[in-house]
């Protein structure tokens, strides 16, 4: 009698339940694992390059001429200096002292350099003796349809200053 009883979940409802269950579980697993998928890191292209053509430091003022010898635009740079001869990593922010050749940003200098551009910059009133400077170029790049500020750490340059 029981074997002949046909009441219960119909085949169609069974299939729907099965598919809905599979979709829900798939969605949950996807949500959990999607953050583990490596995405492209925000970085500058390899062709970004800058060099210091001229430098003059008189103990109080610094004048540098920067040249963009890379293939891409540079929108500015971080400039730091060492305050002792032994210091290997420059930490003194010189962007505070910019007078000409750029606009002071929040810890960086804003100045557009197109490829092959050459621009002088003057930093005046540096009240601490500095020994070398480190420049990290920065760019504004489009990432996910919005412009992002990107530091080009791999294109950084160091330059010793000759004291006069």
């Amino acid at each position, binding site marked *: 009698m029981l074997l002949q009883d046909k009441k219960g979940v119909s085949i169609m409802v069974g299939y729907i339940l099965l598919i809905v269950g599979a979709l829900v579980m798939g969605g949950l697993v996807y949500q959990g694992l999607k953050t583990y998928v490596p995405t492209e890191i925000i970085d500058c292209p390899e062709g970004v390059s800058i060099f210091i053509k001229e430098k003059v430091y008189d103990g109080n003022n610094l004048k540098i001429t920067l040249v963009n010898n890379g293939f891409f635009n540079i929108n500015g740079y971080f400039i730091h200096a060492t305050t002792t001869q032994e*210091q*290997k990593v420059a930490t003194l922010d010189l962007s505070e002292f910019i007078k000409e050749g750029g606009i002071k940003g929040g810890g960086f200098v804003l100045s557009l350099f197109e490829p092959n551009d050459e621009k002088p910059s003057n930093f005046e009133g540096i009240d601490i003796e500095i020994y070398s400077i480190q420049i990290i170029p920065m760019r504004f790049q489009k990432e996910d349809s919005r412009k992002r500020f990107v530091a080009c750490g*791999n294109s950084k340059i160091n330059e010793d200053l000759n004291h006069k």
Partner: protein
Amino acid sequence: MKNSKVFILKKTIYKMKKGVSPVIATVLLISMVIVLGLIIFLWFRGMIVEEGTKFGKNVKLVCEDVNFKASYSEGILSIVNLGNTPIFNMHLRIFEGKGYDTLDLKEKYPEDWEGLNSGGTFSQQIDGEVGNADKLTLIPILRAKSSKGEIPYICGDEYAREVEGI
């Protein structure tokens, strides 16, 4: 006579239709499985520490993108962030002999440490803490988004960088 009584009894049992219907049984079964599944899920979730995400990625993967340089000279620790991942905090490990001490830079120097954004720098006199250390390493700590809000995430030892100059 006895046989016919047994036959009638069996027939009555087979004919008895009272009990849980197959639909209710199925509904009960499915609800019990869902409830049990939820209990197990919540139990395991409480045991697993949530790592959080940064830039839409698991923060563990973002640790690989951290790029910084550090040096120590004349008692001053200098750090520069060369990458594009903001560093929320750092642990300085001071190795001396067989063991090491850990110094939380944000906790130790709350007024000087402001975090390291792209191109950001930090320098601090730390000779009093370092003493006669054999080696110094820095471990980055990132800020990750989680269901509990923003949480600090300490990158693994494999992302520690040695401080130059010691």
